[in-house]
């Protein structure tokens, strides 16, 4: 019901939206909740477990009941709080957890079965038969319980992530927050003021009192005008600060585009990381409920929300309202309603000594013991000194007192302390370094108190920032003392709800205690209290008070559960903004990328790089056909492959040679200028780190290459070694991976191809600077294929041109490009290792390269590599494998001695790489086999349990092709 002349919504801007397909009208500034209440809609959802009809409970982000689905093109957002979602033209909202309709819900039968569905019922009921849990019981329970549903499609919308920095972060823009922000603004520091609401002002707008004799909203507008005009202040509305982290870092979720119809490029939400010098937490307090029989009917609301709906939205949630409270504060709601012309039938005050001076009947020392009304409240039963009576009412405002929002102060393991006077938990100072609680969240409950506290705490924070300032004078406002008589539960017959969102009653908490889940953490998990989207904001303190009563302990002794981030729900899409699909990781493209794609090569990921898998040709339909052709092409003619992804490190300085001798197992100081050497690098623990070739370009100038996979790792290793062990050596290095495009040209006709380009005569493992039409290039005679091979490097800008040129020349010689698949087969045939073999667990001894650890010098990892257990017959050693019969073998398979039972204890090793060799017309494998080198010529049984493969193989030397290296040396 709308109230004329009240509220801050824009009456000149009507907005039409739909709820469950029915069109409603509200005004700009309305939430879905306020607009539905204005239209007299009382039932907005069904409860989690019992499917009871539920209505709006609160007017804020803590709402546990009014959770709805927002439907947009391509989007279906579940569990949206109707109290948070602003309406906009065309907004489509649906109720959830009901079938076939909100009014007639089949699963409401659960409510009848409630005696059998108490906390933990499924742990006890569905024990047998055991198999039924996963296949039968759980799916049924999951379907019956739960809240919203997902679209089942990917979320294709835009989300944003951002960083912000400030000197003073103020969280919450109520009276305390606004004063703190003003204090910071005038001190000249960079201020961020964040508030979860679309309009700043907090309870000043909801309570509607006076400041300095004028409406509080006027004062709020003046303060906001000052803050908006200040260049050092950033106002962040619709921004909920959700977590406190180390170093003054806070997470926050901003609703950027959720209050307007979707439009191109406008993000839905932004996930902020805000780093603040100091922080004032002015999060306020939340009103808590009292548990009494059937307190969950639509129409039963929080008392403070009633005045929020009147003052902010000009809506009365009922026609004949009653109030049930244990404190003075709730009377503000009764007065606000009466002032707006709404009938207040009664105030039921639990305190025997409460004042009865109001313009409506007041029952002191009375309690609400029951409610009536099938789809909404129609009457309450009140027990007072004279007995019981019924009061007809369609809206009951409940207040059990206020809980300071201590959440953020507890995010770094702090625990709040119990304040008996306030009957509430209050934060402990210093629980989060640099964060200071002010106002209601620190237990200061009067408006005047909050205004003054905001200024006081801001002065404190500014002092830490080195700005000594005087507190600005707080304006004059209401300063009534907070009078509360704790009451958590009205005992009696019937179910009394604590956690509305998860359908947890006082009975469930008592049952938990009875079954010895008496710790508050155990009770929470047994009953699921506090585990719904509101994370127990509305019910935690009430539930632990009931638990304290059931276990005979005090509330302070019972304690709270752990407060964890996020304070309010954060969508995964916002946290992962930009990370969907290809956004997951940067993509690295070689200069030849376009040329490879032009040839229809499927590009595969190799780390962050994209490399061609193979180059399909003619009628080829499978990768194997292309791969086999490319292998034969390299072996018999010439192939071209982009190898730019290999790490390249430019190493210079008088101690460069000495440095390489330290990091490599073999000697590089003796390498002549213009020559290249293969090197092996160990970790400090003696296992192989990486391998690659290093060229000596000048007396004090080397160029190291690393594997693609370990390029970053090796760079880090070199940095560490230099800084930790030889900081005074004159050696400098920098990655030049990106600066050079490098192409392998391999095969018997590689020399002919090179000769058509440039006149250079290189010995095996030689290197030289050359020029291609004025472009400085480098040629290395190295090979990873076992054929005569060259690698040609040019500055990256010329990479694509050179690749296209090389491929064209290769094709005239009967060759062409080859991809990763062929490259892999070629190196397996040659017994060359990759990180499939040097996976971090293998030693130089294991891969048959123990001889490369020079006896003449020390190196990183040499001592550790000599430890007992890292060499000898017990080690798994690298060997080659060939299946005895024509059969496929697989990497990842395990090896067994023929005749042994195939079980873990008899495991003899495993296969690391396999490939089909068209040259040898069969599969080849590289494997690690116990005492493998001594078993060459023997048989092993290869078993792959995952792929159901069981093949007898011959153990071979790992070099299958050109053992003497005749082709390589040409």
């Amino acid at each position, binding site marked *: 019901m709308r109230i004329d002349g009240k509220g801050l919504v824009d009456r000149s801007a009507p907005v039409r939206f739909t709820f469950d397909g029915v069109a409603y009208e509200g005004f700009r500034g309305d939430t879905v909740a306020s607009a539905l209440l204005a239209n007299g809609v009382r039932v907005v959802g069904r409860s989690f477990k019992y499917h009871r009809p539920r209505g709006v409970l609160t007017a804020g982000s803590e709402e546990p009941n009014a959770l709805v689905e927002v439907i947009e093109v391509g989007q279906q957002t579940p569990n949206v709080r109707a109290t948070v979602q602003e309406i906009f033209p065309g907004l489509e909202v649906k109720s959830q957890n009901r079938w076939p309709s909100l009014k007639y819900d089949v699963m409401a039968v659960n409510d009848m079965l409630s005696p059998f569905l108490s906390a933990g019922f499924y742990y006890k009921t569905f024990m047998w038969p055991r198999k039924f849990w996963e296949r039968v019981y759980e799916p049924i329970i999951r379907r019956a319980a739960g809240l919203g549903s997902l679209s089942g499609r990917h979320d294709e919308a835009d989300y944003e992530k951002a960083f912000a920095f400030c000197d003073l972060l103020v969280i919450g823009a109520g009276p305390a927050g606004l004063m703190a922000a003003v204090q910071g603004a005038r001190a000249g520091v960079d201020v961020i003021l964040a508030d979860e609401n679309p309009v700043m002002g907090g309870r000043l707008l909801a309570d509607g009192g006076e400041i300095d004799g004028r409406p509080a909203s006027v004062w709020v507008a003046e303060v906001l005008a000052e803050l908006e005009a200040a260049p050092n202040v950033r106002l962040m509305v619709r921004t909920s600060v959700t977590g406190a982290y180390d170093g003054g870092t806070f997470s926050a979720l901003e609703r950027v585009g959720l209050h307007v119809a979707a439009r191109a490029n*406008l993000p839905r939400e932004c996930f902020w990381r805000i780093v603040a010098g100091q922080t004032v937490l002015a999060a306020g307090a939340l009103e808590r409920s009292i548990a009494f029989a059937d307190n969950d009917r639509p129409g039963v609301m929080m008392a403070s929300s009633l005045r929020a709906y009147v003052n902010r939205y000009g809506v009365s949630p009922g026609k004949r309202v009653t109030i049930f409270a244990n404190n003075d504060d709730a009377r503000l709601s009764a007065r606000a309603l009466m002032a707006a012309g709404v009938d207040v039938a009664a105030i039921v005050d639990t305190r025997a000594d409460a004042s009865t001076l109001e313009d409506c009947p007041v029952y002191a020392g009375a309690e609400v013991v029951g409610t009536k009304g099938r789809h909404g409240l129609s009457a309450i039963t009140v027990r007072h000194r004279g007995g019981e009576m019924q009061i007809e009412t369609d809206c009951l405002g409940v207040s059990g007192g206020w809980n300071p929002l201590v959440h953020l102060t507890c995010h770094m393991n702090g625990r709040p302390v119990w304040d008996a006077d306030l009957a509430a938990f209050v934060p402990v100072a210093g629980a989060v370094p640099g964060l200071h609680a002010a106002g209601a969240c620190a237990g200061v409950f009067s408006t005047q108190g909050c205004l003054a506290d905001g200024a006081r705490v801001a002065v404190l924070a500014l002092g830490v920032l080195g700005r000594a300032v005087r507190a600005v004078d707080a304006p004059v406002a209401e300063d009534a003392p907070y009078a509360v008589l704790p009451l958590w539960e009205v005992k009696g017959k019937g179910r009394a709800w604590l956690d509305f969102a998860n359908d947890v009653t006082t009975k469930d908490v008592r049952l938990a205690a009875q079954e010895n889940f008496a710790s508050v953490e155990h009770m929470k998990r047994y009953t699921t209290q506090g585990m719904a989207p509101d994370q127990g904001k509305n019910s935690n303190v009430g539930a632990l008070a009931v638990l304290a009563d059931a276990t005979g302990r005090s509330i302070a002794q019972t304690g709270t559960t752990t407060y964890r981030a996020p304070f309010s729900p954060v969508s995964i899409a916002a946290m992962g903004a930009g990370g969907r699909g290809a956004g997951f990781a940067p*993509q690295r*493209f070689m200069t030849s990328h376009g040329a490879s794609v032009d040839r229809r090569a499927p590009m595969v990921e190799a780390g962050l790089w994209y490399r061609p898998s193979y180059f399909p040709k003619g009628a080829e339909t499978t990768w194997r056909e292309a791969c086999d052709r490319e292998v034969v092409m390299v072996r018999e003619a010439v192939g071209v492959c982009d190898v730019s992804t290999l790490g390249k490190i430019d190493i210079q300085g008088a101690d460069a040679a000495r440095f390489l001798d330290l990091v490599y197992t073999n000697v590089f100081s003796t390498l002549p200028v213009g020559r290249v050497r293969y090197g092996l690098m160990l970790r400090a623990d003696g296992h192989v780190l990486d391998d690659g070739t290093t060229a000596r370009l000048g007396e004090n100038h080397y160029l190291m290459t690393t594997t693609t996979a370990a390029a970053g790792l090796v760079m880090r290793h070199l940095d560490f070694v230099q800084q930790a062990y030889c900081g005074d*050596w004159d050696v*400098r*290095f920098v990655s030049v991976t*990106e600066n050079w495009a490098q192409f392998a040209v391999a095969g018997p006709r590689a020399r002919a191809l090179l000769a058509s380009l440039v006149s250079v005569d290189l010995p095996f493992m030689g290197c030289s600077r050359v020029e291609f039409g004025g472009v400085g290039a480098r040629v290395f005679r190295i090979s990873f294929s076992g054929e005569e091979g060259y690698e040609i490097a040019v500055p990256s800008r010329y990479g*694509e*041109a050179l690749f296209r*040129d090389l491929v064209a020349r290769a094709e005239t010689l009967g060759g062409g490009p080859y991809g990763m698949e062929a490259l892999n087969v070629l190196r397996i045939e040659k017994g060359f290792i990759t990180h499939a073999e040097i996976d971090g667990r293998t030693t130089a001894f294991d891969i048959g390269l123990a001889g490369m650890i020079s006896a003449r010098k020390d190196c990183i990892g040499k001592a550790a590599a000599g430890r007992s257990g890292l060499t000898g017959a017990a080690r798994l050693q690298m060997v080659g494998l060939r299946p005895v019969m024509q059969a496929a073998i697989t990497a990842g398979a395990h090896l067994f001695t023929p005749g042994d039972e195939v079980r873990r204890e008899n495991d003899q090793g495993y296969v690391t790489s396999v490939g089909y060799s068209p040259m040898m017309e069969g599969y080849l494998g590289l494997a690690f086999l116990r005492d493998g080198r001594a078993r060459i010529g023997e048989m092993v049984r290869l078993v792959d349990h995952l792929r159901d493969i069981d093949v007898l193989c011959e153990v071979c030397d790992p070099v299958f092709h050109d053992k003497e290296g005749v082709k390589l040396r040409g």
Partner: protein
Amino acid sequence: MGNLIAKRPLGVDPVGHGDLVLAEVDLGRVTSVAPFAGADVARVLKPLVFPAPGVVSSKGDARLVWTGRGQAFLFGAVPEGLGAVAALSDQSDGWAGLSLTGTGAVDVLARLVPLDLRALVPGQCARTTLGHMPLILIAVFGGFEVLVFRSMARSAWHEVEQALRMWGARAQC
């Protein structure tokens, strides 16, 4: 053989919103300069000075940008006479340059760069990250130069462009 055709890392046209412009820039010649132990680099570098961490030394078109421990990148100049006192490595083709200048440059970069950009003013630079990419960030008058690995240029462009588009859409909201 004929002349090889040189390609820019991206080859894209500028995009923008209002006076905020994202463009690919030609970095020209880039040389990594790492002074050798005990070398009198100051004399050779004059009028430039070897920069302290986070600092850019410049004179005319020549800029020496700090890029790491004992390392700076020389832009806009030929490293003449430096070879004797410092390890020089050509980086002209290793990095892609983007420039982001105009109103809102800080706000757009704040979507991707985890640094307090309030503190980064012309004459300063930083080694940091752009999303998950290694970044050399140089503050220039009215904005920033964003240097990323050449192979990652497309990802970088895409991310900055996306951030710019979303920022632009916010401004209209």
